């Protein structure tokens, strides 16, 4: 309807529908990013004529994408009315799935997280269980919080995610998890809510989250390191996330330290294993007590013991920190980041000893110019960074100019012709080939 309307308008006289879509997309992004918000600023930034700008703004107000806001700064004469993006025109569903937990949230169209929920979950329960849990909580959150209908889903997944060859094409997911092979996880979730879905690796979304709302806010060059059972890094260079040729950038856990892989020495399981050994042979009295009381040990116990001054644990975490720092130093020399953020359960638990070990190795092995203003800090966002980053992924995808031009005339990405086609293809494919059952289904 809107497309017809745009074509019928005489004002601005677009040479073609494509030109109209391009100018709509350009103006929407200028307003959305607050690069230009008054008519005068929009004319200047877009280099479009006054009539065209007026026409496109009217169209987007009608489509529910823009609204008129408060008065701006007067520069002689009447104060101009500012245009505002309707970030509540739709919502974004976001989730971060990790080995032992899931996080879910709802964000607005600016990627601002509005509500979040975290709970323990075991990835080895299988994709069907996780898929069902996600759908259940998303349904509940949408109903409970009365947020507008979703426009897209952003997912942070463990392991690398291949780049999608075309828009709206789901990529093979979770190559690193044998039991998930062949399971149409993204397709099923996309179908369930009738929205496009965009996935990245957990570490990449966390990096984006830290850059948007965490310690990296306002910085263009940061490294995020996730220290969990596996170890990986994300990189934002000159404001852009670096994904690599296949989308698998940042797998630093596979660096060698002597004969071992880094994550076999400094991952959460490795630290827990060393703690168990120290509890058994009496090197750590605190861990011995904890083990006898609870029958198990985790990296959280080791971190706590270090904070209480247990010398074995202080030394263990310091050594792990140095291993991680040695793997980070070459990256630091290569990239020259302003900030390195350390996250993941090991970082949350590791306390000052771990951070001191990382700093020691990075500063020792980095060029003085590179390390001069370099900050190394622990993440304050925790798993929320994955949610904020996943929302940012959807925002960047939906509002990327080529994608935006495909739907702006319709007022919503759900009416993008290519997405409609992909939904039809998915319906046919999934109907023809029922999904394999993988694990128990929780209603």
């Amino acid at each position, binding site marked *: 309807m809107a497309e017809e309307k745009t074509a019928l308008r005489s004002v601005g006289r677009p040479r073609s529908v494509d030109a109209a879509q391009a100018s709509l997309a350009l103006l929407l992004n200028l307003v959305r990013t607050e690069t230009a918000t008054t008519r005068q600023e929009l004319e200047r930034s877009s280099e479009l004529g006054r009539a065209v700008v007026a026409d496109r703004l009217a169209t987007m107000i009608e489509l529910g994408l823009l609204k008129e806001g408060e008065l701006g700064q007067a520069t002689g004469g009447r104060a101009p009315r500012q245009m505002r993006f309707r970030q509540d025109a739709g919502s974004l569903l976001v989730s971060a799935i990790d080995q032992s937990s899931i*996080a879910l949230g709802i964000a607005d169209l600016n990627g601002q997280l509005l509500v*979040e929920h*975290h709970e*323990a979950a075991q990835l080895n329960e299988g994709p069907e269980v996780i898929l069902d849990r996600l759908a259940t909580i998303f349904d509940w959150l949408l109903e409970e919080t009365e947020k507008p209908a979703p426009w897209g889903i952003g997912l942070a997944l463990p392991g690398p995610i291949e780049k999608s060859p075309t828009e709206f094409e789901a990529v093979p997911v979770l190559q690193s998890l044998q039991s998930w092979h062949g399971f149409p996880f993204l397709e099923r979730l996309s179908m369930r809510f009738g929205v496009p879905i965009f996935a990245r690796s957990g570490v990449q979304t966390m990096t984006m989250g830290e850059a948007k709302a965490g310690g990296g806010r306002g910085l263009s060059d940061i490294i995020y390191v996730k220290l969990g059972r596996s170890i990986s890094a994300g990189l934002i260079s000159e404001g852009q996330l670096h994904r690599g040729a296949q989308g698998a950038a940042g797998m630093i856990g596979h660096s060698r330290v002597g004969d071992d892989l880094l994550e076999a020495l400094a991952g959460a399981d490795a630290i827990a294993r060393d703690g168990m050994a120290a509890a058994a042979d009496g090197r750590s009295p605190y861990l011995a007590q904890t083990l006898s009381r609870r029958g198990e040990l985790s990296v959280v116990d080791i971190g706590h013991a270090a904070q209480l001054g247990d010398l074995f644990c202080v030394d263990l975490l310091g050594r792990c920190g140095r291993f991680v720092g040695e793997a980070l130093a070459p990256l630091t020399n290569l990239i020259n980041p302003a900030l390195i953020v350390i996250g993941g359960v090991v970082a949350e638990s590791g306390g000052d000893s771990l951070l001191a070990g990382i700093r020691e190795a990075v500063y020792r092995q980095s060029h003085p110019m590179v390390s001069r203003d370099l900050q190394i800090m622990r993440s304050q966002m925790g798993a929320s960074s994955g949610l904020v980053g996943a929302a940012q992924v959807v925002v960047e995808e939906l509002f990327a100019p080529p994608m935006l031009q495909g739907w702006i005339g319709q007022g919503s990405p759900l009416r993008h012709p290519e997405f409609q086609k992909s939904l039809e293809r998915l319906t046919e494919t999934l109907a023809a080939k029922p999904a394999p059952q993988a694990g128990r289904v929780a209603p």
Partner: protein
Amino acid sequence: MSIAGLGPHGERAVPADQIQLTAIDTIEAQARRFTVAVVLHTTSSDWSKQELAGIAATLGLHSAALVEVVDCNFDVDQQIAALTRLAEEPVDAVISIPIGNARVAEAHRKLTQSGRKLVLLDNAPTGMLPGTDYASVVSTDNFGLGQSCAAMLSKHIPSGGAAGILGYGIDFFATHEREIAFRKWMGINRPDVTLVRERFSELDSAGTAALEMLRSTPGLAGIFAVWDVPAMKAVRALAQQGYDIPITTVDLGNEVAIEMARHGMIKGVGAQMPYDQGSAAARVTLAALLGLAVPPWVALGGREVTPFDVIEAYQVIWHQPAPRIIIESLRDMGGAQN
């Protein structure tokens, strides 16, 4: 009860009993004579009174003065005004329970920016970060409480039966977590049970909401109410209409304890330990004021209470003897212990 839930940013819990001040910390805290204010959603509930008692006693032991207690009367604007004022007052730290979600975030953030230490109870509003915006969140394991209530109610729901959720219609983290956990437990352990829900936005409409559930689902076999006050509103409304429905809820308020002792509709409670939570919040506040590293999420497990151990549970939770009426009610029912 072990801690089942994760923190506001997915953090693993540090149990509250692991937060202890050393003798040297105590001496330093006593020498510095800190001042602390507390901002609560209400000061009239049993939970609030015990929370305050735990805070006041622990601060007092460390020569820290509790100089003001603000009752926000569940009003977001009152909370914002109180925090804004406290940012200008001569207090070293504030312990606050955020009432709304995003609406009170900025006022809390500004309090921290003013140089005061901020320790939150129950939850951090979305977007607020530990370290930058607050020192720590001290919370009961609300997820675990929801699971407990589901397990206790499940015993009263026949195979293929229906259970109701009396949910809170306001964006409140703790009650959300309880409801999500209740649903999850039922989904996994009692997939045969049909769940229905009614929400109330004001306490006075909780009874009507409970009756509405029964009208829409006549065979309803049990109800989970997200905390004790609406649970008792439901009990009264249901009793007036002649219903007797098993109910589980969160918190061992006095009325709920009496109802349990009478072997009435309340069949089980997942109770918070407000005195212990208040004490933990005070220890975390003192640690933060001393410049010690504090964990972003400190959690306390709840306690399951049944009609058979309501007296002992009362003593543990409220740090005082159970009221005479509870003991006598149990004696009348033949369930009191000597």
